[in-house]
């Protein structure tokens, strides 16, 4: 299944892109997606901490499976205000 991925702020800099699409097997969770992304984006593979993930605009746990999810975003700690 194709998952559209977005990176923001420092993560976009590290990934070298703000968005990408990945083909992952059905049943893949956020953790599996992150691992797959790390293979093509070495800048995030050695991040050392886990950013928050959002699935279809809502914060999601890293063990959430991506079946039916269209967009996953990885979010550094927010700093608005």
């Amino acid at each position, binding site marked *: 299944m194709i998952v559209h991925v977005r990176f923001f702020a420092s993560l976009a800099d590290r990934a070298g892109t703000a968005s990408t699409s990945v083909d992952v097997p059905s049943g893949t969770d956020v953790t599996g997606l992150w691992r797959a992304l790390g293979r093509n984006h070495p800048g995030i593979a050695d991040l050392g*901490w*886990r950013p928050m993930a*959002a699935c279809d*605009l809502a*914060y999601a*746990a890293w063990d959430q499976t991506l079946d039916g999810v269209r967009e996953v975003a990885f*979010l*550094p*700690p*927010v700093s608005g205000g």
Partner: protein
Amino acid sequence: MRLQEEAIQVEDLVRAAGSPGDGALALFLGTVRDRSAGRSVLFLEYQAYPAMAECEMARIEREAIARFGVSRIALVHRTGRLEIGDTSVGIAVASPHRAQALEACRYVIEELKRTVPIWKKEYFQDGAVWVEGQGPRAGD
């Protein structure tokens, strides 16, 4: 409209929140400081995940109304380049009485800073850095 590139107009916030049944209107403005950790800041840039930020801001408004019993909330955050002294975030909370308006206003800004996907980049004379807040991380 909760995200905008244009300057925040205080009168618009007040007009959007207030009503004749309310005796209190609490207003909070976040403004761009000229220093960060002892360094001079030239200007800022805010980036948002717009669709999710709008969802989170709407959630915070609903929660604050339910929790504090206030009448109406107007909440707006700017994106793009901001200069020193500009207003980056504006919150107006209207309520029949002052205590609820003030408490709800505090709640809205604290929740915004904790969960709304917006990031600030500080530009200095010798470079720029993304600020990473105290917001949630999935684990270190």
